[in-house]
């Protein structure tokens, strides 16, 4: 028994030393992990963006206020503004979602049914998904890594692309990732001088007192548990004492009304 114990200890020491020694090697650089991840995400982002943003709305009255919101959030949170690429598409559905490589799709239906502060909350939430790398995590979980790699390396199967778009726009992130994005969005909004409470109001009332249920379907599929999320946002905002901080609108009320009037 003594022999066995001694050999067990020696074995563990040997394996432990081997593991430690090998962990000093920079495998991430050797396998080019970062650049491969970045390339895959960039290619995937380009593929999906091309597919989804044909005919994106480009009127300055629509694009400029949204751009101002994104710019304020990025500026006050030291985020790379050039990485976040916002596209507004003509869709009645009240929804917005993040794509790989920093793209955000905002449906005109969302802008039509929110004020600028509420829309800022949604945008901050999607930016949080991007900065925390949630989009690729979700895709790898739902679609699978090998499938994604086959898509970006040339297997441009339209059905596969549709599945990916459906996964991005129509299904929910895990509860952990949604909570992380919600709380980070609150931080982003507070730093940008935007009240996070209206974002919580929007989530709380999203079960459709004033919005048609067919417009909400996509939102509800991709953002379940809206009421619980709203409560968590309010609780976190109160912790941060957001009410005591000053909030200034990003664009004027008139500009937002003009935006809404210009939506198809």
């Amino acid at each position: 028994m003594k022999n066995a114990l001694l050999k067990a200890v020696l074995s563990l020491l040997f394996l432990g030393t081997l593991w430690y020694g090998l962990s000093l090697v920079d495998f991430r650089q050797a396998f080019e992990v970062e650049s491969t991840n970045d390339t895959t995400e960039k290619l995937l982002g380009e593929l999906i963006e091309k597919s989804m943003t044909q005919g994106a709305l480009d009127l300055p009255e629509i694009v400029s206020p949204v751009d101002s919101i994104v710019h304020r959030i990025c500026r006050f949170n030291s985020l790379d503004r050039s990485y976040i690429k916002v596209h507004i598409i003509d869709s009645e559905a009240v929804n917005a979602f993040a794509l790989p490589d920093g793209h955000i799709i905002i449906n005109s239906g969302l802008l039509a049914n929110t004020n600028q502060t509420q829309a800022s909350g949604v945008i901050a939430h999607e930016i949080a998904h991007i900065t925390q790398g949630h989009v690729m995590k979700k895709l790898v979980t739902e679609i699978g890594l090998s499938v994604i790699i086959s898509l970006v390396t040339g297997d441009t199967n339209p059905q596969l692309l549709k599945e990916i778009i459906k996964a991005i726009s129509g299904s929910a992130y895990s509860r952990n990732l949604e909570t992380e994005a919600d709380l980070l969005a609150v931080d982003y909004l507070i730093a940008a001088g935007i009240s996070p409470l209206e974002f919580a109001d929007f989530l709380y009332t999203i079960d459709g007192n004033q919005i048609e249920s067919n417009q909400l379907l996509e939102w509800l599929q991709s953002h379940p548990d809206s009421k619980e999320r709203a409560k968590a946002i309010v609780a976190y905002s109160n912790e941060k004492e957001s009410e005591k901080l000053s909030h200034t609108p990003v664009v004027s009320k008139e500009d937002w009304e003009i935006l809404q009037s210009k939506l198809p």
Partner: protein
Amino acid sequence: MIQNTSFAYTPSEEESEKASNSYVMSLIAIMVGLPLPILNLLATFIFFLANRKASYFVRWHCMQALLSQLSLLVINSVLFWWTVAIVFQNETADNRYFAYLIVALTFNLIEFIVTIYTAIQTRKGKHITWWFYSDLTNTICKER
């Protein structure tokens, strides 16, 4: 690491075959066992149970095979759940992960080669002892 030593007695043809099969059991399950570490162990354990009343030579080698699979289970389970955490949760594949991956794969490879060799030699009636595992087996498995 592995030694060809003499056993308490010379095993018969049937005993040699059964003892060799205990190592073969872990190899059969290996293709499924790599992503699901428990299956190798289960296959070896079931074989051990089926032969718990067999001769000393058979029981001894069943035990050695089982103990080696137990250690593999621990190593492979850590790797499996670490990989799941990277793919499905917030963990990143850092240098420690890649280092562990290499150690685990090397351990599996060595175990695979040694198991095949031991299966072949045991089938010939030779008594192959593995470093550390044989000492543990000697402690646990006694001649009746």
